[in-house]
């Protein structure tokens, strides 16, 4: 259906600690004033990475050791707040290809799926261990098996979970929904004709 099947993701890990990391932290609202998503990557976590005078602060996204990381490891309720797709867009344009966390805000997870970014849920205690590992071993390769719902790092396999509809959409290459939804205009028209308030 026009979207590639995504059955796995591999890359170096990067850890961002903290629960309830909201979309305003991921991409501050003032960077939303653009009519395209181009160039958003460099504004990921902007206010946590730079102080008011533009001086670099300590942050994993500033750390040289993690510049080519692509698997983000986070805690719970990541991406809460606004429905802005700018948040996953910014992360994707920075280089993130998949996210592993304890839990995700629903709209954020949906927006990730629409971009083909798998979001993978893992037990809180396991997340902590993975974060420590990533922090003390920069350059760690993490492999995500979306079909089997497992991740592999440091020579061990850990069970994870991906919401079934997301998993199926990724694996079957049907996460680009526009093509799918555009394939039955007659049926859509017919249903709309049965809805009482549609004239």
């Amino acid at each position: 259906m026009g979207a590639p099947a995504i059955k796995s993701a591999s890359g170096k890990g990067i850890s961002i600690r903290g629960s309830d990391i909201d979309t305003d932290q991921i991409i501050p609202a003032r960077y939303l004033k653009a009519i395209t998503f181009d160039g958003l990557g460099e504004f990921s976590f902007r206010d946590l990475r730079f102080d008011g005078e533009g001086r670099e602060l300590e942050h994993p996204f500033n750390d040289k050791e993690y510049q080519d990381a692509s698997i983000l490891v986070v805690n719970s309720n990541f991406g809460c707040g606004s429905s802005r797709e700018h948040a996953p867009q910014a992360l994707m344009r920075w280089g993130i290809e998949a996210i592993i966390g304890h839990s995700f805000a629903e709209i954020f997870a949906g927006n990730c799926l629409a971009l083909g970014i798998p979001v993978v849920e893992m037990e809180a205690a396991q997340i902590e261990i993975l974060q420590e590992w990533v922090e003390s071993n920069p350059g760690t390769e993490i492999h995500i098996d979306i079909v089997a719902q497992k991740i592999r790092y440091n020579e061990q396999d850990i069970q994870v979970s991906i919401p079934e509809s997301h998993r199926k959409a990724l694996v079957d290459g049907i996460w680009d929904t526009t093509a799918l939804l555009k394939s039955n205009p007659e049926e859509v028209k017919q249903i709309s004709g049965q809805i009482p308030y549609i004239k």
Partner: protein
Amino acid sequence: MSEGTLYDKVWDGHKVRELPNGQDQLFVGLHLIHEVTSPQAFGMIREKRMEVAYPELTHATVDHIIPTKDQSRPFKDDQAEQMMAELESNTLEANIKFAGPDSGDQGIVHGVGPERGLTQPGMTIVCGDSHTSTHGAFGALAFGIGTTQIRDVLATQTMALGRQKVRRIEVKGELGEYVTAKDIILTIIRHLGTDGGVGHVYEYGGPAVSKLSMEGRMSICNMSIEGGARAGYINPDETTYEWLKNTDTFEKDPNRFEELLPYWESIRSEEDAKYDDVFEIDCNEIEPMVTWGTTPGQGIGISEEIPDPKSLAESKRESAIRAQNHMRVTPGDKMEGYKIDVAFIGSCTNSRMSDLREACKIVEGKTVASNVRALVVPGSQRVKLAAEEEGLDKIFIESGFDWRLAGCSMCLAMNEDQLIGDEACASSSNRNFIGRQGSKDGRTILMSPAMVAAAAIKGEVTDVRRI
């Protein structure tokens, strides 16, 4: 699984088919658009040489970036001007109705739909904005969507969505004086958490909800999203119908009202509907709420003490410590007496007529504390006009408030209305996230409009019941 709820009925009535990924394709009855999240979607449509499938079911307005002082064009902020121009040309090209600043109908998108009667019971409503949940107050299924989904809806008037669980939130008891819908929803979020609603839609009901005005119902549904729920709704009743009758959609066409009434009645949740779970709260125990932290779940009653992070669930501790450092508050203290620099009455949570009236009652004949910057930003041009006809603007201005033009303003500070440095703001909006109001050191305390009014007068967080 839920059965016989409004959610189930409206969902089934709009379902086109089940998709291969297990989600459903849902028809969208009303698509609302604003300038921030739509240009990229229009761009994608153009790129793929597609057209807007149902422009007549799509309405646009401008709210996030619009200046509230000087709206002369071009806007002073180039980027804001560019977004505005882009929305104008996109809507013109696609033949979509656009309520711009010259129309008299412009305002925060979640105020505009309800006040014009575009928002109706039993509809599916989407908008590229998380507070689309507001429209659920009318018994609509209303979801915030991302830009890719906006593209889907523009191209097909349908979207792919997985079915959620339905949680009934039963609100009992009676609200005390100066205790409002805002305090109810802040209490719900405090108890269920900012992620308590993930995977759920909230149905609010019970005696206290039945008694609420449409405005109050909108405030509650509005903040469903802060509770993690994708949507929230309230079954339509006489209060809903009264509101609808007085909108131009049905004033112009009263027959239409009679035609649609049976449908509206038919989609109400059944008496014996099945819910995935039920949560109860008692209004008698609610007092005016204020937040002490940096998530909307970090709230307490005005006479309560700020909690010790150690007393909270383990998963909440670390963010509570971070929040208390940011807010510079100490466990055991109260929020009462917390000095403020700014008072903001506005946002899609609380910028309707009843909000302004309640705040006015507090400030009438009093003066805003000398060190406080106070502003009122009506939710829409219509609200602004109605308030001026009642003379509310004069009362606000005489007491020292700025009376502004309609928009989102300091709710998210995408225009010039921003906190500076570490200013503290008593705010009637919905999010106290760090940086939300324009300064990363800014401090936001969420509360009802009457509480904001009281804080503005005293120059500090205060109990509105004692002013």
